[in-house]
C-alpha cells in the first residue's frame, strides 16, 4: 500500500488552489490491498467446487434456455394457426369475387 505523502499536503493557510485539490486527491487515492484471508477464500471458491458448480449451473441453464425457446416458438406458431386459416379463407373469397365471368350478349 502506498504511503501517504503527508509532507506534501496543502495547508489551509490561504486560498485553496486547483493544484492543492489535485494534491489532496492524489494523496487520498491509492491501491487497496484486500484482506489476505478474503483473497484466499475467494480464490478457493473460484478454483474448486464453487467453479465446478457454477459451470454446471451455467450448462443447465443454457439447456433450460434452449427448451424454453422451443416452447415459445411452438406456442407462437400454434397461436397463429387460426389467424392463418381465417386469412386463407378471406383470400380465397376475395379471389373468387374478383374472377371475371364472361357474360353472353
Amino acid at each position, binding site marked *: *500500500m502506498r*504511503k*501517504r505523502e*503527508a*509532507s506534501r*499536503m*496543502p*495547508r*489551509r493557510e490561504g*486560498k*485553496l488552489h*486547483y493544484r492543492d*485539490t*489535485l494534491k*489532496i*486527491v*492524489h*494523496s*487520498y*487515492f*491509492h*491501491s*487497496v*490491498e*484486500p*484482506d489476505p484471508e*478474503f*483473497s484466499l477464500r*475467494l*480464490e478457493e*471458491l*473460484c*478454483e474448486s467446487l*464453487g*467453479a*465446478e458448480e*457454477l*459451470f454446471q*449451473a*451455467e450448462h443447465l441453464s443454457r439447456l433450460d434456455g434452449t427448451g424454453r425457446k422451443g416452447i415459445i416458438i411452438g406456442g407462437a406458431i400454434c397461436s397463429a394457426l387460426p389467424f392463418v386459416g381465417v386469412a386463407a379463407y378471406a383470400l380465397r373469397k376475395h379471389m373468387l369475387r374478383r374472377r371475371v365471368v364472361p357474360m353472353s350478349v
Partner: protein
Amino acid sequence: MVGKERGERIHHEDGVLVQRAKEDREAFDALYRKYLRKVYTYVYYRVGSVEDAEDITESVFLHALIHLNRYQDRGIPFSAWLLRIAHNLVANWHRNASRRSIVGLDIVESLTDEGPTPEETLEEEEDFRELRRELRSLPDERQQAIILRFAEGLKHREIGDVMGKSAGAVKVLVHRSLLSLHRSLSEKGGRQ
C-alpha cells in the same frame, strides 16, 4: 509510445489467459490473481466499506467466471470488462437505498503514517473527510472517472474502454469532476 506498446502486450497476455480459462477453468486463477487488487480498489472506493467491497468483489469474479464465454476480445481489454461488471454491481448496490447510510473507508482511517505530526495528520484527515463527502455528492459517472483515474491509475483511453467513451470525453469528464471537487472544497474552506 512505450505505454501503448505495454498496453498492447498486456491486452495480448490477457487474451491468451482468457482463452486458456475458457478451455480450462483452473486457468482462471491467473486472471483472478492479476486483477483482484484492481477490482477490489475500485469497488472499495465506490462503496466505502470493507465488508461490502468484499461481497461485491466476490460477485464480480464469480460473475466473470460464469460468463467468461460471453467475453469476446473486440478491442476491449479483459480488465475493462471486469471493471464494467464491477461498475454494474456497484450501481445495483447503490440502488439499494437501505445500504446508502453506511459510511466507511475504514482502511484509509486506520493508516499509520511515519512522517507527519499529529496536527498534520488531523489536517489530512479533515481534508480527506471533506474530499470523501464531496466525492459522494458527485454524479455516479464523475465518481467512476475520478476513481479509475486516481485510484487505479488508468489512462484516459483505458478509462474510456471501461466507460464506453472516447479518451477525449474522459479527459473532459475527469477535468470537470476535479473542478467541481475543487469548487466544493474551496467553498468549504472559505466557510471555515
